[in-house]
């Protein structure tokens, strides 16, 4: 099989892994090596689905011993299979890197033969790139569940980020859809890497060993909509992953119906709005000081897709509002729907020299569409409607029920098609930052 064909097969097989970030690493180049990492990450292109291409994202092989229901590469699917040699991967990576197509490599694999065999091949590829080619660009390596800790530790000393994909947020769903996997085989190596990172960090402070150990940290991915798991279960798990295992990112991937399986729900399109709401909630957990239990609970376990999670929270906690722009702390400002981190900082900067008038808010670039219902400026409330749940809901309602739109029943499909509503209208630009 020629390289062209292999690349087509093994890139197509890798595309449902959403992570493409090249951020978080500060690896520098050696004297005459190739490449370095840029802490903020760099996007090199954007595909027609609006996602960023930062890394060359491929599988080493799609020949899998597992048979996970949701996965295109499962054993029982009759699809073309291919296998890259480490040399082939290194050659493409280096050639692409020199032409500035990519920031580096995101290498994953199906489970070939067994976990250790696969992990050894991945490690061999990484060693080739780092040691033979002196490549210092970004490498994101997928960890293979069930492989030896020694192999994982060695890989972590060479790459910028490692991710083990959780895929399904509950043991029950894993049993149903991925019977060959169990949550321990995924969480144990994550926890191992977290401990090792702490140890290595301490060592770096005391000794002269300045070697890198996954400077970009760990990430993971969960598939959204392939199982019955609720948003509450999902964000609770994310919160734990951030707090206990110090993950850098949790990715959410709307399930694209690639297989027909009696254990899978029948869906007509990937639930992109739900995915987007989960990303918004994830941002609230990481940067806005929210707790998962503030956003959802057992009685309301799923987001109302018509509103972003912060607006949902605000509508259920109206006694917290209105917030006075000229006095509120950063933490309080960040509770205002529609007001992001950048806006909050701008307000705080401007307040140092000036008491802000309502008109000033627009001038410093604050988007008031949602925020206006939740704030006062110099004690004055500027919205024409009352601070009252029903009225605000009516104002901010998107016009059609996005809960139905995102997960249409068969009889609704034609209605939505007639209305010609492109999903992109409801999807703000989070996708690019993935």
């Amino acid at each position, binding site marked *: 099989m020629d390289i*062209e064909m292999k690349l*087509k097969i093994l890139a197509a097989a890798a595309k449902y892994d959403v992570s493409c970030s090249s951020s978080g690493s500060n690896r520098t180049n050696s004297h005459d090596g190739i490449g370095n990492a840029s802490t903020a990450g760099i996007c090199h292109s954007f595909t027609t*689905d609006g996602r960023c291409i930062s890394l060359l994202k491929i599988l080493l092989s799609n020949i899998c011993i597992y048979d996970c229901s949701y996965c295109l590469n499962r054993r029982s699917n009759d699809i073309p299979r291919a296998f890259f040699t480490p040399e082939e991967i290194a050659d493409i990576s280096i050639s692409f890197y*020199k*032409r500035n197509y990519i920031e580096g490599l995101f290498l994953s694999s199906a489970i070939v033969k067994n976990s250790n065999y696969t992990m050894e091949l991945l490690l061999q590829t990484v060693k080739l790139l780092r040691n033979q080619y002196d490549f210092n660009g970004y490498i994101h390596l997928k960890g293979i569940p069930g492989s030896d800790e020694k192999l994982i530790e060695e890989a972590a000393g060479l790459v910028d980020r490692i991710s083990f994909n959780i895929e399904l947020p509950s043991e029950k769903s894993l049993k149903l859809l991925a019977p060959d996997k169990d949550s321990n085989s995924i969480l144990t190596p994550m926890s191992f890497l977290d401990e090792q990172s702490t140890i290595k960090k301490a060592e770096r402070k005391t000794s002269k060993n300045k070697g890198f150990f996954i400077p970009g940290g760990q990430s993971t991915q969960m598939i959204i909509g392939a199982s019955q798991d609720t948003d509450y279960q999902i964000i609770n798990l994310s919160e734990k992953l951030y707090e206990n295992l110090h993950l850098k990112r949790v990715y959410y991937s709307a399930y694209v119906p690639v297989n027909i399986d009696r254990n899978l729900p029948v869906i007509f399109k990937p639930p992109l709005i739900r995915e987007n709401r989960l990303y918004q909630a994830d941002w609230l957990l990481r940067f806005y000081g929210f707790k998962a239990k503030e956003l959802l609970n057992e009685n309301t376990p799923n987001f109302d897709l018509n509103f972003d999670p912060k607006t949902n929270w605000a509508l259920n906690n109206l006694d917290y509002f209105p917030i006075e722009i000229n006095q509120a702390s950063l933490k309080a400002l960040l509770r205002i729907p529609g007001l992001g981190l950048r806006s909050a900082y701008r307000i705080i900067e401007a307040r140092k*020299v000036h008491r802000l008038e309502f008109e000033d808010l627009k001038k410093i670039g604050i988007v008031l569409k949602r925020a206006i219902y939740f704030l006062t400026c110099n004690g004055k409330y500027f919205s024409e409607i009352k601070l009252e749940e029903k009225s605000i809901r009516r104002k901010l309602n998107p016009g059609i029920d996005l809960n139905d739109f995102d997960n249409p029943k068969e009889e609704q499909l034609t209605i939505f098609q007639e209305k010609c509503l492109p999903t992109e209208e409801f999807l703000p630009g989070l996708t690019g930052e993935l």
Partner: protein
Amino acid sequence: MKIYLYDSTFNGLLSAIHVAFYSKEPELEIIREDDYLQTTIQEILYIPTNQEKSDKVAQAIKEKISLTAFNNIYYAYLSEYIDAGTKILAYLRLGFKKGSEIDCYSFLDEVKSIHGYRSKVLLEKHRMLGFVRFQKYPDYFLSIIEPDHNILHLIMPHFVARLPKEKFIILDKKRQLAGFYNGDHWKLMPLTINTDSQAEDRYTLLWQDYFTTIAIKERLNTKLQKKFMPARYWKYLTEYKTKS
């Protein structure tokens, strides 16, 4: 309205600002001489570049306002917007009154414009780190770009750090300016190339295939794609070159 013309260099701009501060002229525009379209109504004055005056202005900005303010006007200058010089003057006039807190005044037009120009330049600089595409020639790599703003010298060090052993040229076709790296050090030089045709090899084709393959058709969203990668940059992107 009086117009000061300068020679398009940053030192030229600072020299014009020096003259402006001593002239007491209330309404004044500062424009690059290349941008100036002659009309009969305006009174123009050509300001020669003067290193001493320029240094004085730079020093004063850094000491009496802030280093950030100095960087802000430098980036605003690189935007090459026709009114950038005039806006920089307004920002500095306010800056010398307000001192180091100037950048808190983002609700005032004088400050907002400069912040806006700075952001555009820095955004394009960041984007170009990703959108530069090198074509392989036997002895060197070549990239052609046409950025909105004058950012070539800002991105050169990034590529030098990454590809220390390669020889490469990045050509800003719009400004007929090229960054040359000979494997040891880099410099800017004027360069004109008439053709847009570029070398092609198997990796060009592999990359084009990869670009098409990696998109998820069920998630098609070209509006989002164009938001992050505006169509004006596509001309030199290898993935959008038609296959020969």
